[in-house]
């Protein structure tokens, strides 16, 4: 039993973190709400860094890695609130690609999104391909209706007829990828709020010195501390092909979703009116968290999956 990442995995994590700190500051996230694509413009460079091709075989220009190599990078994409369909593309689509599409996808030459059961395609307007069931289709082959999301970067397109069957593998990889992003979002919202609570003074003292504020933030730290290992454990189960991976992914997504929603609530409450304006950056993270907590199965849906396994002894996930 050794529950830690390798030095290589941590080094890659650090590289991606500093890349995103420099190239994807809040301004980039904010601009994605109003630009043409809803995206960061960093896609090709993420390809160059190998982030998009982690799960692609080396002969396709990928790293030939598994979810252990990817999970920390997706967590970083959440920390930065990177406005890209990176989970759909790198965690779901890339490993399923064949032929010359794989190298292009690994390099960031194309962008692929994935149809969830709701039929709402995140970043669909700017995607080259859409994975529907087990088929990669071009957007123009689909009947799509544009929608606005509370997260201005996501620009979901609604399929007139959502996919009728989605493989367990797709659901698991997408849900775990989103769970990793939610961990990163939670961590960032906690940090932002701690920093604010140290600076903001009321009644002559920093608001962070009030016990109620301390306990709000301690509760977020608690949720994060015990959700994060579930996400990493699920990453190993995916890599290892564990039969119970749907249960492990379910626990991970459920707890990561709850942690992120709690963090958003606490962050807003501690920030007060300032956090309630779109001029301040918090809302960009908060709204991403709201959207992702409900996507690819919310806490209740995954809790139901886990319950069927733990309480009823089911050994396979429910059909969607």
């Amino acid at each position, binding site marked *: 039993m050794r529950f830690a990442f390798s030095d290589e995995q941590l080094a890659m994590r650090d590289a991606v973190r500093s890349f995103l700190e420099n190239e994807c500051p809040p301004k980039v996230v904010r601009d994605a709400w109003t630009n043409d694509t809803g995206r960061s413009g960093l896609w090709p460079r993420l390809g160059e860094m190998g982030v998009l091709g982690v799960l692609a075989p080396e002969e396709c220009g990928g790293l030939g890695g598994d979810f252990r190599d990817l999970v920390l990078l997706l967590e970083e994409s959440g920390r930065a609130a990177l406005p890209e369909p990176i989970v759909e593309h790198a965690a779901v689509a890339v490993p399923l690609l064949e032929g010359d599409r794989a190298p292009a996808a690994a390099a960031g030459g194309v962008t692929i999104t994935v149809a969830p059961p709701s039929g*709402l395609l995140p970043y669909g307007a700017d995607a080259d391909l859409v994975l529907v069931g087990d088929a990669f289709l071009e957007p123009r082959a689909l009947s799509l209706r544009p929608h606005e999301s509370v997260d201005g970067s996501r620009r979901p397109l609604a399929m007139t007829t959502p996919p009728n069957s989605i493989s367990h593998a797709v659901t698991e990889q997408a849900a775990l990828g989103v769970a990793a992003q939610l961990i990163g979002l939670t961590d960032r919202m906690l940090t932002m709020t701690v920093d604010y609570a140290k600076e903001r003074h009321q009644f002559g003292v920093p608001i962070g010195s009030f016990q109620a504020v301390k306990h709000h933030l301690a509760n977020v730290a608690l949720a994060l501390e015990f959700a994060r290992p579930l996400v990493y454990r699920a990453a190993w189960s995916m890599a290892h092909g564990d039969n119970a991976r749907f249960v492990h992914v379910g626990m991970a997504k459920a707890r990561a979703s709850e942690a992120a929603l709690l963090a958003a609530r606490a962050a807003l409450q501690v920030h007060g009116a300032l956090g309630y304006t779109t001029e301040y950056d918090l809302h960009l993270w908060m709204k991403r968290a709201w959207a992702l907590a409900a996507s690819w199965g919310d806490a209740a849906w995954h809790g139901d999956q886990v319950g069927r396994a733990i309480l009823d002894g089911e050994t396979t996930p429910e059909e969607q």
Partner: protein
Amino acid sequence: MDLTFTEPEEAFRAEARSWLEANVPRPALPSGDTREGFALHKEWERALFDAGWAVVSWPQEYGGRDASLMEWLIFEEEYYRAGAPQRVTQNGIFLLAPTLFELGTKEQQDRILRKMASGEETWCQGWSEPNAGSDLAGISSRAARDDANDGWRLSGQKTWTTRGAFCDRMFGLFRSDPEAERHRGLTYFLVDLHAEGVTVRPVERLDGDEGFAEVFLEDVFVPDRDVLGAVHEGWRVAMATTGSERGLTLRSPGRFLAAAERLVDLYRAHADDADPTVRDAVLRAWVDADAYRWQTFWTVTRLMDGGRTGPEASLVKIFWSELDVRLHETALRLLGPRAELVDGDDAVWMKGWQFSLSGPIYAGTNEIQRNVVAERVLGLPRR
């Protein structure tokens, strides 16, 4: 104890219901927290006023119908049941008016109240400042005496003034005695936002509406007649009234009873794929709203017997604001992955969710309110 409504109460309800059914705009107006929407809401307020429904609990001379508190509650139930528009006049009617009735001069009452009720003059509040949020006594905006013109000169900045970008007038506290500190030396002013030296900058709220504003004041003249209560006594003036005589609160049970009913409808529409825990959450929201209703009837009966409301008001503010958050959170759970959409019919829930999140923050954060409950209701030491 008799929990049936009297015949006059039932008649009042029936009259309100039929007028609302005939007059509530369909389709619903756009948000009153936008410039266009605000204008449309002012028309609606005018219609309410002309029909005598704008301020039912006020004296007739100011456009009311001398309704009892119980009737006011009944009107609120009917108003929200009918899905009628938000009240863009509410900060004047519910926050300033009670103080005017209690401490204003007859001249001020005659000059201000009818125009406030009709929406001809809309009011916003100017409490918060960049460094005076929960700690209102941190106010630093100044009022300098201008004897030559029998008035005052106001300078400083107010923030988070709801609909400040669209309103005509603002009420707020300013530091009239630079020597005094904290709660002392403040004066309660009524400020014309169209006056020289006032600059208003709209601020975008979580939901994208420009529902907030920053108000910058530079040497703005305010005549003595627009001082409410005694000079330097602004804090006492602002805290004096509970408003319990003419309307308890901005957030009476009616609005939550109506929201809970809509939530139950939403649940029924999604019952097949709703998990059991969300069913429980829907029910809790409904019972919360009903509990708020009966706690209010209980309180209002006491008030009509001559009682006063005190710090218990903090319990009420905590309860409705957290009930509202849970209620909308539950609606979003029912909508699942479609909850993120801010276009289409169901988008009202995401908008309502974001609005509900302001409840535990404004008018004294719920952390402060819980301190008030502990210290002033339960008697725990202040420290």
